[in-house]
């Protein structure tokens, strides 16, 4: 690189009426012969320029390349091994000072510096991220520094986060209730929001696209068909809704279970908590299924493609009708039209039925939840009574 000398002097403004004097035509004073000491990088650069006949700019470029090559050579060694894209993340103060006892509430991905990957992080990446954090936050490293006794708090958080994320089952449980996505879950557009929008078509894809992308991670079947675009063919759209109406989710809610009171030896107590947790899980699962169904329903109701497909079908029917009238070949066409009509009707009926089922299911879920609640209350009362 060119060596630029920074000067602190600030030349004053030019005097009024200053015109640049013409070049004197003189050359610089005659050069003198000198004998260089063949030493140092600068001499090497000097010789290289002379031998390879390079100008200064060309030489700059060469040195830069050379440096890159050397850096790559060194990098291939010990210092910079491939971290699989784990990278570095900022550590805000509240993250570092959180209480390791409240580990259920902590964002394990943020603790390991993986908030940009989350559920996408591979086990290898988690391992690397954990190692990185441990190297940085190990209590031994802080031995010389000033700090309070809670200094290894964050290290405990790291260990807990790794414990959760390195176990596939526990990780799935955490991913199910990842606090990062909780905010988004409530942020689903409603039917009126879409219809009242100035550009409903565009808004539909903009708002529902990310929703389905987010929900797709819970599917046991992968890959998941995503919302797609406005000019998707009928088959694709139907396949999409078909998939989402039969969504098979791995989401579960064990992570939110209430801890069984370790201190108490009471079997009943334990059983009671376990039972309660179980019912709570089931309720949550049901709620989640209903929630997803609701999203799909809303999407279906306002999907501009459905409207378009219907319109197209109608047009096709009418076109046939008309062509039949002209050609006298009406019977066939009429039959066909009728058949199509019947099919459409059937489909509509089917859809209605499906919706009905969904509604019923939701109702049932509600009833079950109510039942469960009732039961729980009853049991609680019974337990109270038993203790009393």
């Amino acid at each position, binding site marked *: 690189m*060119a*060596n*630029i*000398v*920074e*000067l*602190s*002097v*600030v*030349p*004053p*403004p*030019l*005097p*009024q009426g*200053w*015109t*640049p*004097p*013409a*070049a*004197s035509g*003189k*050359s*610089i*004073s*005659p*050069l*003198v*012969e*000198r*004998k*260089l*000491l*063949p*030493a*140092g*990088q*600068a*001499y*090497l650069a*000097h*010789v*290289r*320029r*002379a*031998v*390879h006949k390079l100008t*200064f700019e060309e030489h700059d470029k060469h040195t830069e390349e050379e440096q890159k090559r*050397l850096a790559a*050579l*060194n990098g*291939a*060694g*010990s210092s910079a091994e491939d971290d699989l894209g784990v990278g570095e993340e900022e550590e805000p103060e509240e993250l570092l000072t959180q209480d390791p006892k409240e580990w259920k509430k902590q964002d394990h991905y943020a603790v390991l510096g993986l908030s940009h990957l989350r559920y996408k992080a591979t086990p290898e990446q988690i391992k690397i991220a954990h190692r990185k954090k441990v190297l940085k936050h190990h209590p031994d490293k802080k031995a010389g520094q000033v700090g309070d006794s809670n200094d290894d708090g964050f290290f405990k958080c790291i260990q807990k986060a790794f414990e959760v994320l*390195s176990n596939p089952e526990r990780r799935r449980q955490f991913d199910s209730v990842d606090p990062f996505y909780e905010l988004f879950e409530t942020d689903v557009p409603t039917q009126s929001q879409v219809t009242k929008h100035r550009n409903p078509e565009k808004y539909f894809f903009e708002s529902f696209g990310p929703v389905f992308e987010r929900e797709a991670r819970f599917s046991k079947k992968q890959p998941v068909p995503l919302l797609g675009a406005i000019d998707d063919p009928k088959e694709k759209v139907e396949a999409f809704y078909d998939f989402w109406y039969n969504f098979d989710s791995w989401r579960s809610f064990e992570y939110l279970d209430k801890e069984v009171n370790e201190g108490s030896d009471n079997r009943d107590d334990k059983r009671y908590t376990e039972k309660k947790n179980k019912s709570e899980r089931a309720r949550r699962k049901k709620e989640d299924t209903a929630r997803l169904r609701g999203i799909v329903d809303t999407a279906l109701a306002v999907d501009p493609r459905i409207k378009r497909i219907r319109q197209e079908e109608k047009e096709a029917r009418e076109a046939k009708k008309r062509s039949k009238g002209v050609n006298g070949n009406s019977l066939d066409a009429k039959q066909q039209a009728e058949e199509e009509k019947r099919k459409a009707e059937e489909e509509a009926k089917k859809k209605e039925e499906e919706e009905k089922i969904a509604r019923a299911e939701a109702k049932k879920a509600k009833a079950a939840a109510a039942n469960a609640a009732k039961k729980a209350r009853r049991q609680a009362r019974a337990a109270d009574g038993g203790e009393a």
Partner: protein
Amino acid sequence: MSQPNGSAEAPIEVSAIPTVVGINFGNSYASIAVLTKEGTAECIANEDGERQIACAIAFQGEELYIGNQAKHQLVKNSQNTITGFRNLLGKKFSEIPANALSVSAPVIQHPEIADEPAYKVKVLQASPSPLPTTASNTPAASKTATPRSEPVQVDRVLTVSEVTTIFLKSLIKSAEDFLGKKVQGAVITVPGWFEQAQKDALEKAANDADITVLQLLEEAGAAAVTTTSGPVPEGLSADRTQLVVDLGASALSLYLLSIRQGLAFSLATLSDHSIGGDAIDDKLIKHFAKEFTKKTKVPLTVCPASDPQDKRAEAKLRLALEHTKRTISASPGAATCSVESLKDGFDFTGTITRLRFDMEVRPIYDSVYKKVGELVSAAGLDLYDVDEIVYVGGSASLPGLDEALSQGFPENIVTPFTQGTVVGGGVGDPTTILARGCALQAKILAQLGEGTEEEREVKASFTHGHQYTQSKATSKTIGLLFPEEGAENALGGQWIPVLLRETPVPARRIVAFNVDLGEGEEKKVGFEVWEAKEGVKIEKVKLPKLEGEEEEEEEEEEEEEVKEKTVEKETLLTSLSFAAQHATKKGGRWTTRLEVTAIVGEDGALEVSAVEVGASGRGEKNVVTVPAA
């Protein structure tokens, strides 16, 4: 999750650092430097824990001593101890002055090779061990082995080259023990005054010791490498004039170097074999001998000593002084010198304060100062033209020397002492500076490729006296003058020197600075390019008339002792002016940032270009050229 113990993979060791060493091979002391993991150079200690390894080898009986242990042999076994051999390398016996060193083994004419200096030492040669009994032999009468017969005393004649080989081998051995790897190559220092024959002899001796010599580097070059690698010290620019003061044990060498962005050449050199650490020792020995006589009433005449008793006492004192000198260099307090049984069984312990020390050694300091003056004026410069002093050698670590020298220099002169880099392994540590420079140079050389013809040529250019070391340099400073209304100085504006005199060509300098454009909306940038005359003395131009004039001026200047750097404009070369496009307004005034590049080609053609650098990007390039003569 958990792995069984021992299943972790061993770290892959890919090191870009070559295993090369730098050796400073002085006449009295040597030092070794290796490259650290970070790529910097570090002086290492040998197995005796000594960073300053005495250039001495001694034979005693069957034993061979090398280094500081050998030096101690000078007391009792001086006839079998060899010192000061480096300076004799490559010399013929007839060239060596007859009154050379007498403290160690005398230099004699080699009995077989004509006109070859050699050393004759007495060694005990182990006699051959008895023949082992074999099956066919008659069995030995007893189980106990036949004792070896007594070793016989023989005379061993060693040439200077052989001695050097033995010594260098031990240095490389120390480095290999430290590194744990085989040394691939070494750069060895040679003094500036070494002739080609001496260099050849050194290279041969090194090759005999199985050392791949990457380069024989002049001491000035090694010092320049150390001082130019790494960041530019505070208060200095990359273009500077450096004075290297090498005060070794046996000689004083002075180099005046012009350093232009790391590219160094010497403006003048001077060496004097009468000034050195040994002379300092002589003064101190006399001082302590006097003190000893005063304390114990035992007469002791030293420097020169004639009585063998006195001689031995002198050798003892000399060894003890080494420690005293180091203490004086390292701490501001007093230093002690103690010798057990100095003479007639009397012990001696004396202390010396730094003040007293400097008083005793003052004549040496003064002669160094005088030599520096001679050197600088030989280069046609003034002491005020020197920007930096670099000290080399053990004796140059004495703070008193720096104090004595810096009187004549401007107040802002940069020395290792003002920078505080002398102690604690700093950059300016005079005892290790050369070895470290050699190691850095070795690193550069070891990384050179040898694939193509051109790469080989680049490598060859590091050999002594190669054509690429011949270069042309500018003789006058070229700079920019920004005219100013009502300027106070004689130049009539703001002067920005860009290409200093004594800059080897082709050269390029880029300077970046802010320009004040005033309040008006005109926003015009303009400057003139001048060749300037700096100070009162300018580089010796090969014109006899001018030289005469200048010398007269010099004398006047020195008599008046008015020292101030002056700049006079001499020749207008060209000018450049354009309207600023990227100016920004700050506090009602327009300013812009300018990047001016000046390139002098090999033929002396000058190209000045100015580019505006704004927040929005780089402006147009405005170029003017001045053709070569």
